[in-house]
Every structure is written in structure tokens, then in C-alpha cells.
């Protein structure tokens, strides 16, 4: 009898335990529904000697079923002020990307396959700043409940499907109550720990959770980059028109 009860309990625990995919879906739902957003961001790059370099930028995003559209405008340093990057993200093919160079009045189509490249010389790669659709990963293995700070988190593994990804795997910590990502460890292609990102300062804006700060530490070069949202507006009323090539020259 005892044996039957124990097996039943184990089965029940297994039945009610969430899979990595389910947690990823819930996590995606928690930060979705912003429709469109307009943000002002500051990027603080800290080298191994502790010296800081600050970059300012404006960003706009349009939520789309088949991949978000993003427009990024660089406000500093002064020599690149007005440079814009327009990205049409796709789940099943390479992203479309255009770069506007104001000094030359030139719109350049660029290859959207550069996943591993550094974004503005920071510790963020293009892959890190692109939207993290659930379908971009597989979620093998068991999910464990672990303490993370004063919270309890689901700790799981996700593996990028894209063979051009710079990562062999990512370990995620997701808040059990809110399903907001708290921490991600990124492992390079040689399976060594490369970077750790700490997500913090979450705010609920118009019913949508938005991250306020990401602290990305590179364990291999001892550099660090903080990405801070200075201003963030959701449901901003943007449409496809605000993400056409016309806006690059405006």
C-alpha cells in the first residue's frame, strides 16, 4: 500500500511539474502584449580596468506574430548620432536589416546573419538584443525549483535552434510567481561559461511587464555592460508604417 501511495505521489509530482517549454511560453506571455513600444536606453560599457563608456539610444518595437520589427537610433557618441538600424526579425529565416548612415545619406542593406557580433562594442551580441521567441529554442531536461535571491525560480536549459548562434546552451532562472526571467547564463560553442545576464528593475507598464535593467558580465574577458531603460512606453500606437525604410531618413 505504502509503495502504491509513493508511486502515485511521484507520478502526480511529475504530472504537475512544468516543462521548460511551458515555462518559456508563460514567460513569453508575461512580457507580451505591449503591441508597440518606444524606449530611451543607456548602455554603460565597463572594461576590465573599470573604465566606463556610455552610449545613448532610442528604440521602437512593433510586436508581430512572425517576428518583431525594431528600429534603433543611436544618439551618442556624437559621430554616429542619427545612425539608425532597422530590423525585421524572422523566426524561420535570416532577419532583414538596414543601416542608415546620416553622414553619407546612405541606406545600406546588411546581412542579418551576424548573430554573434558585438552590438556597439558592448558585451551584448546581436542575438542577445533580438526578441527571444519561444520557437527559437529547444528545452531539454528537467526544470528544477531553486532559490534565487528572495524568490523561488524555475531553473532550466534552453538550446538555440539556429546553427549560427554563438551559444551551445543557455541556463535560465525564471521567477516562479511572475514568470519573469531573472538570470541567464550563456555558454559558448566550446561549452564554457561565457556570460551571465541579470535582469532587474521590472516594472508593470499598462499591464505589461517590462525589464528596466540588464547587467551582462563576460566571464572570459572580465568586461561588463549595463543596459538601462531610461524611459519606456508601451502600446505606443505604432504601425508598420513607423518601421518602413522611409523613417530611416527622417
Amino acid at each position, binding site marked *: 500500500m505504502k509503495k502504491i501511495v509513493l508511486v502515485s505521489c511521484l507520478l502526480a509530482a511529475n504530472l504537475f511539474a512544468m516543462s521548460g517549454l511551458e515555462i518559456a511560453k508563460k514567460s513569453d506571455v508575461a512580457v507580451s502584449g505591449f503591441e508597440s513600444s518606444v524606449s530611451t536606453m543607456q548602455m554603460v560599457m565597463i572594461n576590465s580596468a573599470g573604465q566606463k563608456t556610455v552610449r545613448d539610444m532610442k528604440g521602437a518595437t512593433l510586436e508581430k506574430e512572425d517576428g518583431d520589427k525594431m528600429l534603433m537610433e543611436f544618439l551618442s557618441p556624437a559621430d554616429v548620432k542619427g545612425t539608425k538600424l532597422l530590423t525585421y526579425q524572422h523566426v524561420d529565416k535570416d532577419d532583414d536589416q538596414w543601416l542608415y548612415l546620416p553622414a553619407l545619406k546612405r541606406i*545600406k542593406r546588411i546581412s542579418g*546573419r551576424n548573430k554573434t557580433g558585438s552590438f556597439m562594442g558592448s558585451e551584448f551580441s546581436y542575438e542577445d538584443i533580438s526578441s527571444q521567441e519561444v520557437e527559437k529554442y529547444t528545452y531539454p531536461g528537467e526544470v528544477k525549483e531553486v532559490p534565487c535571491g528572495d524568490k523561488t525560480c524555475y531553473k532550466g536549459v534552453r538550446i538555440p535552434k539556429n546553427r549560427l548562434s554563438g551559444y551551445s546552451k543557455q541556463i535560465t532562472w525564471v521567477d516562479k510567481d511572475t514568470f519573469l526571467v531573472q538570470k541567464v547564463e550563456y555558454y559558448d560553442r566550446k561549452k564554457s561559461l561565457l556570460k551571465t545576464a541579470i535582469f532587474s528593475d521590472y516594472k508593470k507598464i499598462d499591464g505589461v511587464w517590462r525589464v528596466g535593467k540588464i547587467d551582462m558580465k563576460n566571464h572570459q574577458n572580465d568586461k561588463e555592460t549595463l543596459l538601462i531603460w531610461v524611459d519606456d512606453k508601451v502600446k505606443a500606437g505604432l504601425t508598420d508604417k513607423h518601421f518602413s*525604410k*522611409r523613417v530611416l531618413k527622417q
Partner: protein
Amino acid sequence: MKQIALPFLLASLLGAGEIAYKGNLGIEYDYFSDTPPGKRSDTFAFRGDVEAKKETGDGEVKLHLKGIWDKEDSERRYVDFQELYYKHNFENSELLIGRNILFWGALEVYNIADVFNTKDTLDDPFDYDRKLGAWNVAWTRFFDNSELAVILRLHEEDQKFQDEESVFNFLPLPYDSDLITEYDRRPSLFVKYSGSGEEVQIDYALVYEAGYDDQRYFTYDRKTGKLRQHAYWVNKLLGYTTYVHEDTIYKAEAAWVVSDDTKVSDYLHLGAGLEHTLYGVWEKRDLGLLLEYYRYEQFNDTKFSTRELGVLFQNDLYLGARFSFNDTASSEILAGVDFDLDESEKIYFLKYDTRVLDQFKTEVQYQHLSPSKNSLFSRTDHLKVAVSYYF
């Protein structure tokens, strides 16, 4: 146009409302080895750009001034309204009136399709990004993935050159910059349709021009004993495209020209190339490999030759490499060689630019010209150092 638009646009800019501005101030030094007799071996100049923009409801007024002060060359001391225009944005279209600069093209070394603005030969005849603003009225209609523009360029700009002691003045006789035009400088019409593919990563543009060719020729004026430049009327079809496949960007440009001038043959100018990038070739640094080829074909050999017209990219092959450090200073090295296959000339160049203290950009450039026996140019090494403060 200039007399009417200038005061109106300047007054609009200075009226109430917030003005956004940016610009740079810089110094540049050029050194040339083996200069011919009578030519300076070095130059030193101050230069600056200021841009001011004000949004006025659905419209915007923009001013962009460029100024140069050359220590030796008094011809090369000037201020140019690169841009001074009013643009009104409608729901699906825009109207621009004034002076501005456009870029048309896809290739890296030379843009056959970039014909809208006259090249600023007084600044630097071999830097094709240095252009004069053009007075025009332009209406653009925007569609989902394409746009149609109708542009009337109202004035043909005179092209000035550096003084006779400058290495960049390769004219054999004194020059009078007052341009001679067929049909007395009438406006040039451009109709441009451009767009992007939805399923395939391609951008394309087609332009029809009924107007003055960007290519000009010189004639000798017996009365003054000086050379003068002629602008002639053409019907021109231009096109350029960029296609991305995986890590390679394929590029092409073409111009097919029917000339109205009895001295200039109809011609076809083609260019094609590719840029393949090896991402993360050394840690986070990228290496881009460049290959471009240019061909100029004239249809009547009894008229001006490419040499007489000063066509530089008539049968040229360019090989290059771009090394991007992807660091906080945006450092980059560009190296390459241009082979003129007809003249057996070679130009090697190496350029390094980086950002210092966040607000300064520095550029060091070296070029070696290895000319043929019959070349207009002499063998020379050219070193350029430039530092600019951005605000």
C-alpha cells in the same frame, strides 16, 4: 530659386521652436611624395560641418553648412550650403523644396548611379562622397515596400578645382569654372522607383533622367586661354541593386546613356561586386572581403575617348578587405588595391579610423599610386591624417 528660398528657409529655421543640431570641427594634413615641379608637397586645412534641424508640425526645415579653410590654397576657402530645405510629410508622401544631398548606389569604391549631386572637386576630387548640394523640388509617394520619386533638379552647379599648385589640380591649363551647358542650364528631371523584396533579401532602384549628365568634358577657350567645363543633355536609365544571401552581399550598378552632344558617344557604365563577411574571425572582430569590377563601353569610337572624358572606372578591378574591431571606439582598417586594367595603373590604399575620448574621430590614410607611362598622374605616395571633434 536660391534667392527666393534662402531667406525663407533661414527665417523658418530661426523662428520659434526647438532646433536639434550636430556637427564637427576638424583638421586634416596631406603629404605627397615625388610631387611634380610647381606642385605643393603638403596641405593643411581646417574643416567643419554644422547641421540644424527643426520640426514644424508635419514638416521640417534643415540646414547643413560645410566650411573649409585651406592654409595654402585660397581657392579652397569656402562655405557651402550642403543642405537647406523644407520637407512636408503627408500621410503617404512627402514634398521637399530646397537644396539637399542624396545618395544613390550600392557599390563601395565608386557609385555609377550616384549622379544627383555634382562632386565637390574643390574639396577632394577623388573622394566621391564629397558632393555639392543640389537645388530641387522633389515629391515622393510611399507604398508598402517601395517608393516613387519625381525630382526636378533646378540648377547645374559649377565644378571648381583646387589651385594650380595643388596635386589635386591635374588640369594642364588654367581653368575657368563658369560652366557651359547645352540648353542654358534648364532643369533636369529624375523619376526614381525603388523598393525591397519581401521573400528575398533584395533592394533595387531604377532611375530615368532627362537632364544633364554627371560626366562633363573640357574645352579650350581661345579668348581667355582657359579650359571650361561643358555639361551636356542626356536621356539616362540608371539602376542599382543589393542582394543578401547568407554572409555575402551582392551589389550591382548600371547606367545606360543616350547623349544629345555630338562630341560624346552614347555609353553603358556597369559595376558589380560582392562583400563577404567572416564574422568573429578573431574573437569578436569581423573581416569583410570586397571585390568590385567596373566597365565603361562607349558605342561610337570616333567621339571623345574615356581618357578625354576623364573616366576613371572604365575597366577597373578592385580587391579589398575591411577589418572591424567591433570595439567601443568603432575602430576599422580598410585596405585594398584598384587595378586599372586598360592603363596598367594600380592604386594601393590603407585606411585606419578610430574614436578617441568619445568625441574625437581620427583617420590615417595611406595611398600609393603606381601609374602607367602615359598616365595623367605621376607616381606618388599620399599620407593623410585627420582629426575631428564631434558635437
